[in-house]
Structure formats: structure tokens, C-alpha cells
């Protein structure tokens, strides 16, 4: 049981690391949204799955409800993260930002 919890947590940390490094390394704002919006979402999914498993060690009704509440967080994040990403992209498009292409590379 503990092994799976550790596995999920480490997978989540790897995805979070990818998101943080991607935000630093990517060349422009549109391509920065790719790691920021989505690697973080999958990181939250993996880590919360690990927490829910860890919480279910001694099985009881209240702990089951807690785990369901954690999955509610995942559900909400999966709904809200594309919406937030889309609203940021929309603001960028309306402000007239050009996107980075290969010719911009020196």
C-alpha cells in the first residue's frame, strides 16, 4: 500500500518539476501556457490519488467521505484549469500579442 502511495507522489512531483522548469525555459507566453496549465493538472491528479490511497488505510465511513472530497478537488481542477488557460489565451489574443515562431530564434 505504502509503495503505491510513494509511487503516485513521486510521479506527481516529476510532473510538477516539469511544469516549473517549462515555465522558466519556454520562449514566449503562449508556449509557456502549455506546461503551466497541463503538467500541473496531471501533477495534482497523481498526488491527490496518492493522498486518497494513504487516507484509506483504516477503512471507515468518515475516511471514505474525506477521500471522495479529495477526488472532488481533482474534478473541480479538471473543470477549471482549461477555463483559466482559455481566458488567459483570450486576453493575449485580444491584446494583440504575436506568437513565437522559428524565425524569431537568433
Amino acid at each position: 500500500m505504502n509503495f503505491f502511495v510513494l509511487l503516485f507522489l513521486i510521479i506527481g512531483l516529476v510532473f510538477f518539476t516539469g511544469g516549473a522548469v517549462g515555465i522558466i525555459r519556454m520562449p514566449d507566453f503562449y508556449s509557456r501556457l502549455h506546461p503551466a496549465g497541463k503538467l500541473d493538472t496531471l501533477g495534482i491528479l497523481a498526488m491527490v490519488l496518492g493522498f486518497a490511497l494513504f487516507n484509506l488505510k483504516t477503512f471507515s465511513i468518515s475516511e471514505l467521505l474525506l477521500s471522495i472530497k479529495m477526488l472532488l478537488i481533482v474534478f473541480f481542477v479538471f473543470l477549471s484549469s482549461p477555463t483559466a488557460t482559455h481566458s488567459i489565451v483570450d486576453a493575449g489574443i485580444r491584446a494583440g500579442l504575436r506568437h513565437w515562431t522559428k524565425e524569431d530564434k537568433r
Partner: protein
Amino acid sequence: MTISEKKEFKNKSSGKPFKSILSFSLTFILMFGLWVILSGNFEPLLIFLGLFSSFLCAFFFKDLLFSDPDSDFLLIMFRFFKYIPWLIFEIIKANFHLLYLVFHPRMKDMIDPHVVVIKTGLKKEMSIVTMANSITLTPGTITINADREGVFKVHSIDKESAEALPGTMLKKTARIFGEDK
């Protein structure tokens, strides 16, 4: 939404009592389930308060969430829940590709951001929203704009993820909402 559209909307949602009752009960069940999960207490007073407040919510806002339930509404829900595991698997597969791109030392040679325009034949609002959110959740592609004719503008980070785009996801989304002919 213009005024005439609003009137039409009102007529549609209050015209048939059966549909109104169906949307009321669906909202009520959803609200009460949420109350039970969030409170976590099973004392009689709290259960009674939850029943009362979710009754009030469902009574006033019944035409917001499930505005126009079709006859095959439950079938659509069932097919939607069957779609979610495939979507999660696809997200994981594509996330590893993005992870590889991020940690690659010569990343700026590998990425090639460009905007593609996809024409899909989707007409219903729910199917367009589902398609747009699925595209955004699949890494490598972000939906910039989507309109009522079903034309999507997509920003994709390299050639590979742009080519894989309309394909299977469009077919599955169209099948969920019964739009494939």
C-alpha cells in the same frame, strides 16, 4: 442573448411540465449529494437542513444547470462517463511527450509553435464545450477560439501534436452527443 432568444428559452423550459420536473429532480439529487459529501455529518438536524436548502436551490435554479434535458439524457451521461477514462489515458500519454520536450537541452530546435484552424461539424453547445476542453487538456494544444459553426482555432506547440488533432477525439465527442450521421 437577445430578448427574443430569452423568451424562446423561457417557453422552452417552462412549456412541458415533465421536463421541468426532471430537471428539478436532477438538480435536487446533485445538490443533496454535494451536501452529504461536503458536510460529512449524519445527524438528523443537519440532514434535514440539507434537504431544505437543496430543495430551495433546486426550486429557484432548476433551469440553470440542466436547462433542456433530452429524452436520451441518461444515455448521454453514460457515454460521457465512458469517455473520461480514454481521455485521461490520452492526457497521460501526451503529457510524457511534453515532459520530454521540456527537459530536452535543445528545446528551441524542437518546438515549432503555430496556429491551425480545424473545421468540425459540431453544432450543439455542450459538444463544442467538451471538444474545446478536451483539446486544451491534451498537452501540446490549446484552444484559442471556438464559434457556433464548430470552427476551432488551436495553438499547437509542434507539428506532431497538431497532426494528431481532429482524428479520434472528434469522432468520440460526436458519438457522445449523437451528432455523427
